[in-house]
């Protein structure tokens, strides 16, 4: 009897979970399908779900008409650059707080967290004016800088929680065996820190790639990453659904893959270690 109930429970919960999962995922699937339709079919009522003329024409057009790769490259430069610089600044800081904490370490960490809570719109005006006078508007450097600073607290926090978990006994054991600080760093600490570093890198890439306040406000064309590029499809006179879908699919595909790899770390990173 108990066995029967369990089987039924598995069937029911599996069916329900797949149904709701599919519903949540559906808008993305619908967009991907639309990207392979012709403009007419994308707009057609009743819509066709699978039996339309599959075409990859939209993907070619998006590149020809609007230089998609230019914006994709900007996204890569901005997300990648801001993440790498943030890591370079954050690694020593998190390292030092995790391995030689002082009485003030906790306060410093919480203060860093509080800077992340400042709403960007609160400093939009001065940043815009500063950027304007330094010629940083619509430049990749400007966006790298601002996204790097904006995400720095999260990067430090994530690294800190990972470094904190490296057992200190191992360090002491290495020291007893006569390891110098340099050897200790290369052979003991680095291998243990790599998983934490990798997931911090991934999460921050995702956040920077999708950031859509500063990128929309500080870039127009030259430095426009994909967020701004896609926003240009919002004008009512230029509604091309199939092309919008193709551009969008290209814009989210790489990050979706990265995101799926890092979902476990996402919880930890975005809750500042409060939920693991």
């Amino acid at each position: 009897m108990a066995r029967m109930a369990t089987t039924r429970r598995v069937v029911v919960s599996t069916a329900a979970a797949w149904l709701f999962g599919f519903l949540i995922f559906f808008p993305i699937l619908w967009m991907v399908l639309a990207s392979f339709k012709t403009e007419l079919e994308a707009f057609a009522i009743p819509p066709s779900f699978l039996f339309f003329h599959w075409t990859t024409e939209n993907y070619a057009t998006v590149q020809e008409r609007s230089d998609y790769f230019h914006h994709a490259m900007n996204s890569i430069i901005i997300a990648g650059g801001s993440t790498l610089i943030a890591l370079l600044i954050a690694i020593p800081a998190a390292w030092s707080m995790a391995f030689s904490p002082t009485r003030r370490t906790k306060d410093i960490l919480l203060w860093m967290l509080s800077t992340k809570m400042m709403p960007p719109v609160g400093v939009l005006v001065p940043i815009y004016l500063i950027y304007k006078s330094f010629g940083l508007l619509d430049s990749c450097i400007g966006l790298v800088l601002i996204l790097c600073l904006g995400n720095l607290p999260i990067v430090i926090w994530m690294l800190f929680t990972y470094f904190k978990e490296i057992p200190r006994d191992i360090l002491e054991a290495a020291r007893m065996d006569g390891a110098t600080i340099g050897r200790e760093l290369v052979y003991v600490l680095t291998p243990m820190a790599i998983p934490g570093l990798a997931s911090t890198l991934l999460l921050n890439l995702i956040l920077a790639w999708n950031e859509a306040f500063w990128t929309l406000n500080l870039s127009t064309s030259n430095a426009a990453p994909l967020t701004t590029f896609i926003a240009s499809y919002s004008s009512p006179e230029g509604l091309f659904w199939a092309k919008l879908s193709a551009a969008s699919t290209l814009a989210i595909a790489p990050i979706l893959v990265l995101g799926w790899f890092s979902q476990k770390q996402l919880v930890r990173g975005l809750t500042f270690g409060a939920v693991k």
Partner: protein
Amino acid sequence: MATRQTQLLARSLLTPAVGLLFIWMIVPLALTLYFSTLHYSLLDPGSESFVGLENFRYFLTDPAFLASLRNTLVLVGSVLALTILLGIPLALLMDQPVIGRNFVRLMVIAPFFVMPTVSALVWKNLLMHPVSGLFAWLAQLFHLTPIDWFNDVPLFAVILIVTWQWLPFATLILLTALQSLDEEQKEAAEMDGASAVSTFIYITLPHLARPITVVILIETIFLLTVFAEIFVTTGGGPGLQTTNIAFLIYSQALIQFDVGSASAGGLVAVVIANIVAFFLVRIVGRNLEA
């Protein structure tokens, strides 16, 4: 054990990060504060003059402020309620023995990784378009009048889009918390004859109290400054119906070029966010000691 040298090293490693964050926090904020006391319009450069609290009086008594404050509260409140109320059952469901759970998880988490401009435009056009959208077609199938989402219920349409983006986050965090719940506790309760409902109320829900608080606080921080979704769908309209505080400040600064009152508004936004931040920092801080 720590020698003077290592202490010195530790401090010098920490300094760049602290210094940068300090500058990043203090300089723009000080400038915002300064601008907020000026009559300062980009359309009329050179005419800056000190006006004291005039900008605050103007911003706070502007009918647009009250409307946008209301919209902000409705947006944040509705999205919070929807993501928690849908997230709990969804997380409970995914915590059941489900065949192919990892795949379902991938589908559920996906919207969170979609950039805001993409999700807003896909929803606005492909799904919510009053004539050619999928929802309009579904309504026709059931002989209903299609809803003109962005004209009839613009704020609700924005709420739906933002909920879709944040439901995965709430679900994932609640699911992670559920999976750390001690199975033995639940089994013991079942052995004692507790029904599924009372197990949920007396064991599962208290266990979820903390993650729910964390979800509420973190979502609030991000939801207070929802911008891109409004920017590409409604542009704050029709009228002021979807203008939230973030969008109002943006339009005062970069559309009307009124630096003074946009700065005053920016400070108001900072104050509101700080009230939330105060509670979040306390909760996270408590966790740091544990």
